[in-house]
């Protein structure tokens, strides 16, 4: 494979608007000259020491320097081994950051070929003494090794003489056999504290071909790659290799915001996936670097595609179901209910079945992939057109169509086509129904892997929304001034599913209703779960009375938003660089009828209002009328998109601002 280098990237100026991704192809030479910084371990200037001491920095600590160097070599016992040299320099600015001087380095344990080795641990502490920087070295006794479990170990080291203002520095090497992990771990250029200089270097020998992807919102300060001669002990002294160097400068601390899919989608980072291994004298092994390869890898994998061949137990189960019904939809429901009942989710995710779906069936317990691959097998055995769909959960990050990567995925669901209709199925949770995926799985697209031919992307966007309908019918008692009436609410779609997932019992929920409205007298609470195998609906009804409304001898003031009121603005931060993601579409409807007391008339009503979001993104309607002794109000909030870009944030904020404002306004009644 020729080594040359071309950089393909999206317009970097757009980074504020959308997450940019770089796909680096190794096909040329590209060097960029930039201000460089190359400190030395064990040496710190006064200037470096004082970085971050200015009043503006309020972080508890700053990573002055964060660097990794990765190289490969062949070891006679363990085969290919990668070595990462890690080096960090931290300025301690607050007492709360002192714990950063206690460093824990976790490592993988296993049989000899699979074990990671941590070595060459070094540490220094720098303090200011009489105007100059004094260094103290960490001694060997400050390093302790603990074997946490069969597969994990940790090295704890404690740096000496650390106080507020100190700079600490440490370094170690980590050797990882490729037999255990065939690619370097992701490197993040951003963290919970600001990073002044984050540098990642790697020398990749020609016989290894990694697909390198970058994500996030920060520009690269240095992006170097060049052909080099390098020895890894595979061919000889002069092997071809590519040396990469990436630097991000002045990365601010990453702040997590509400309504995001996963921090992983926004953090600036670099990740690797092995696509080809071409060791001299061995067959070239190719891994997924096109979607077709990903499809094939999955289809041929023992832990995925090969799990789907029919076997006798499944045939037997299918046979019994065929006796019950021949209707395809009916069979699907039978199969779905069967799997949901028989195999309980053990809370593990993953694309592959670790011990096989048969074992999971025997144990009556398994991972998401065990469960849903079993479901696909059973559906196919029933003669239905069923295929697995791999996806990435919200917390695992987005799937990018232009970056074919097997590692992106961590979840499996089943896809069924019956006539014109396609239905997604996840049998891992008892409250799910066909066509509804749990919220964790609602992450835009998944890849369908058919048993023959090329796979394709399918939308995961659900038909179901988060829907709440609330109605109140109430009247004032002219004698007591008390407002009483009935409340009827319906939780539909994902709101209904949320309810089912969070409630242990109906009676518990009845108590909760009383608890949530401590100022109301509530009785005759009824909660009915009207959900069935195709939709969710929870119905809530009760009678209520409210006593202490603001009033005097002449006036009564009250807020007609007796339920469904949005009192707090959900988007508190003034501006935002990430999209706002609500997971599903939303629809909230509240309507109320109130009879005002005889002898009173309406003095003032809030004004009606309609607010829309650009591009038909959403609508808020507040309509209030009075006729005779009756006041009627409708409030409808509809969000027509799942995700709103950072550009739309300001509109969204104003939209909610208006809702909060209208929902706070009272009605004023006056004695006639």
């Amino acid at each position, binding site marked *: 494979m020729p080594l040359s280098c071309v950089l393909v990237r999206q317009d970097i100026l757009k980074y504020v608007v959308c997450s940019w991704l770089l796909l680096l192809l190794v096909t040329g030479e590209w060097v960029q000259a930039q201000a460089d910084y190359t400190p030395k371990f064990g040496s710190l200037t006064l200037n470096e020491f004082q970085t971050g001491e200015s009043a503006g920095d*309020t*972080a*508890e600590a700053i990573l002055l320097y964060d660097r990794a160097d990765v190289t490969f070599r062949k070891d006679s016992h363990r085969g290919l081994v990668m070595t990462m040299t890690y080096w960090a320099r931290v300025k301690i600015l*607050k*007492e*709360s950051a*002192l*714990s950063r*001087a*206690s460093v824990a380095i976790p490592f993988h344990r296993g049989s000899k070929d699979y074990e990671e080795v941590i070595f060459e641990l070094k540490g220094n502490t720098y303090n200011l003494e009489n105007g100059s920087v004094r260094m103290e070295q960490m001694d060997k006794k*400050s390093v*302790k090794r*603990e*074997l*946490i*479990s*069969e597969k*994990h170990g*940790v090295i704890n080291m*404690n740096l*000496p*003489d*650390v*106080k*507020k203002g100190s700079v600490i520095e440490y370094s170690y090497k980590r050797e990882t056999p490729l037999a255990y992990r065939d690619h370097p771990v992701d490197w993040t250029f951003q963290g919970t504290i600001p990073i002044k200089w984050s540098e990642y270097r790697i020398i990749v020998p020609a016989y290894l071909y990694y697909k390198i992807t970058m994500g996030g919102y920060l520009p690269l300060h240095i992006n170097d790659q060049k052909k080099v001669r390098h020895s890894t002990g595979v061919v000889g002294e002069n092997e071809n290799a590519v040396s990469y160097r990436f630097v991000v400068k002045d990365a601010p*601390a990453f*702040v997590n915001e509400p309504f995001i899919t996963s921090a992983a989608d926004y953090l600036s980072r670099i990740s690797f996936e092995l696509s080809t291994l071409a060791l001299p004298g061995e067959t070239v092994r190719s891994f997924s670097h096109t979607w077709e390869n990903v499809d094939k890898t999955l289809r041929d994998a023992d832990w995925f595609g090969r799990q789907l061949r029919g076997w006798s137990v499944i045939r037997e189960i299918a046979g019994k179901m065929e006796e019950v019904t021949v209707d395809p939809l009916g069979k699907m429901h039978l199969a779905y209910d069967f799997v949901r009942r028989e195999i*309980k989710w*053990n809370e593990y995710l993953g694309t592959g079945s670790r*011990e096989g779906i048969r*074992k999971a069936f*025997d*144990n*009556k*317990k398994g991972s998401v992939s065990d469960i849903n691959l079993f479901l696909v097998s059973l559906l196919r055995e029933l003669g239905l057109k069923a295929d697995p769909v791999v996806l990435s959960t919200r917390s695992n990050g987005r799937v990018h169509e232009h970056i074919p990567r097997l590692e992106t995925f961590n979840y499996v669901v089943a896809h069924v086509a019956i006539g014109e209709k396609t239905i997604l199925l996840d049998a891992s949770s008892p409250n799910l129904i066909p066509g509804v995926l749990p919220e964790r799985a609602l992450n835009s697209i998944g890849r369908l892997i058919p048993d023959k031919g090329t796979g394709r992307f399918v939308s995961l966007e659900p038909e179901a929304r988060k829907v709440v309908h609330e109605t109140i019918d109430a009247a004032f008692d002219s004698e007591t001034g008390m407002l009483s009436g009935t409340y009827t609410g319906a939780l539909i779609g994902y709101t209904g599913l949320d309810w089912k997932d969070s409630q242990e019992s109906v009676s518990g929920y009845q*108590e909760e209703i*009383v*608890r949530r409205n*401590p*100022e109301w007298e509530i009785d005759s609470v009824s909660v009915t779960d009207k959900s069935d195998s195709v939709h969710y609906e929870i119905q809530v009804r009760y009678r209520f009375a409210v006593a*202490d409304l*603001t*009033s*005097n001898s002449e*006036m009564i*003031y009250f807020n007609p938003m007796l339920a469904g009121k949005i*009192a*707090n603005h959900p988007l*508190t931060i*003034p501006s935002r660089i990430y999209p706002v993601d609500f997971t599903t579409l939303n629809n909230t409807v509240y309507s109320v009828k109130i009879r005002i007391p005889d002898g009173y008339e309406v003095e*003032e*009503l*809030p004004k009606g209002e309609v607010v829309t979001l650009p591009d038909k993104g959403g609508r808020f309607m507040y309509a209030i009328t009075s006729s005779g002794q009756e006041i009627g109000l409708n409030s409808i909030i509809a969000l027509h998109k799942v995700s709103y870009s950072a550009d739309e944030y300001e509109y969204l904020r104003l939209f909610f601002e208006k809702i*909060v*404002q209208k929902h*706070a*306004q*009272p*009605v*004023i009644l006056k004695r006639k």
Partner: protein
Amino acid sequence: MICFGLLLVAGLPAAAQAERSIASIPVALLANADAVVRYDETSFEILSKSQARLRRRLVVTVLNENGERDHAQLYVRYDKFTKIVSLEGTVYDSAGKPVYKLKNADIHDYGYGAFSDMITDARLKIAEFGKKRIPYPYTVEFSYETRERNMMFYPSWTPEYTNRTAVERAAFRVKVPDDMDFRFKILNEAPEVEKSTGKETWYTWTAGNRQALAEEVYGLPERQRQPMVLTAPSTFEIQGYNGDFTSWGDFGKFYSSLNRNRDVLPEKTITELKALTAGLQTDEEKIRTVYEWMQSRTRYVSIQLGIGGWQTIDAQTVATKGYGDCKALTNYYIALLRQVGVTAYPTLIKAGSGAEIIPDFPSNQFNHVIACAPVAGGDTIWLECTSQVEATGFLGTFTGNRYALLVTPEGGKLVRTPGYLPADNRRIRSSMVALQATGDARVSVETSYYGTRQEQPSGVIHGKTADEQEKWLLKNLGISGADLTAFAFAHKKEGPPVVKESLELTIRRFATRTGSRYFIKPSFLNRVLNFPVTGEERRTDFYLDPDTYHFTDIDSVQILLPANLNVESSIAPVRVTSKFGVYEADVKMAGNSLTYCHRLSMTGGRYPAADYPEWIEFIKKIRREGRSQLVLVEK
């Protein structure tokens, strides 16, 4: 002999099978239960001053998923002094038939450090039954034996389980050699002891038929409620050190001897220290100066290795490394003070909000060490040596208001640490609101926090970035539509510590407007007391945790109104008093300025069940007052 021992421990009636079948569970025990402990026996055989054997057999019927989460695994801790001799387990189906036996592969071994920040040699064995799902209900049985060589601690026992678990039968047995003293303490109506004096002396406590506990709001602290048996040694030996816990005096002597001669400091430190304190006149000044000096040079690292859990790292090491645990930092600080002629003592304490020891039962009930410096002719000064930010002399909710053991060379002495009364835990706030015609407002707020009230804001000052501080403030204020335009904090540590907080805010819709009217809630910055579910009648005493309920809030809010507004509906002055506290509020109008004054002072503690309706009424009234609105109308 061993066989006989095993038989004794197993102690199973002939109907063992019945014990593991579901059918034999008394129906009453199934109410509110996720699991039923069928049998739980702990037997502790004291072999000598330095050794004991502990055996436990536990049979639990798991009724559902929650029960499985809480009971299907067994955790056994071990370390340098505790060795696990055996560990076995079996699962039985609902009929009591064995279906699975614990295999070696089902027992996992973990370093204790994985569960905490500690550096420790303690480890855990976790046993759990394979991967196969077993249909509910089923019964698990675990039994294990350990050999104990840390005889500072004897076990404590309670027949009570939390987490919706009923108990059918539980027993605690202690075997004592004839030539040794044995001490125990029965708390909160735990069963009485039965002593058998045949060939061997056994002390036995048994209990049973305990229903699963329902969760209770305002429940009493465990120590005041939970039936428990504490046991303790008189004389013991650990790693060659002999001790005696018969009296607190003896306890102190042991701690003192274990930690003797560990206070030598490097010359360099002594020189620095002398320079630091030169010219200081009083002991108070020295205590404070040295404390702050130490705070700026050390950090807390928990290191618990072997006897090091009780024996301090020497002062020399702390001086060079700059870190240590509570014992080490306290020992270091006391060594520093000694160099400047001030005497201080390590003080053993049980730290944590509401944690208490049983004062009339000398035994190792402590988990922390602080320093105590008595000042001749003045107040004793207490010092938390593991904190880099605490004010000199402040203990707060972590170690204040409780018994502690002062360790002097002559022995231990039980003392009480200072408490914090409602009047000490003040929050004093004054706000100025400039209301605009739109209903929006510019608001400045000045707040001072005292006593335990300053613990949280002090943590925010020292531990959070400006962004996080802003988020914390906004969340704490809980006002919709508020934006912080500026804020500042100060932590004053001279004398009793105070946190001062200044805020500049803009609040959208401070007044809600409908047409020509303004609705204003002047109590916008007050706390809203949580309202419990009432429903049932209270049958047990209730507890308002003083760490939360000992406080005083004093507020004054001045609101400058836009011109030409008339008051249409005002708020009447109010004063609500009860045994739980006092609430007062008052609004005064002068020109276009409106002043709202408010005070809420509460007293926590234990209250009789009969007072509960009054408590509910009190919260209701306060909440109602808090919602009061003023209505202003354009002229």
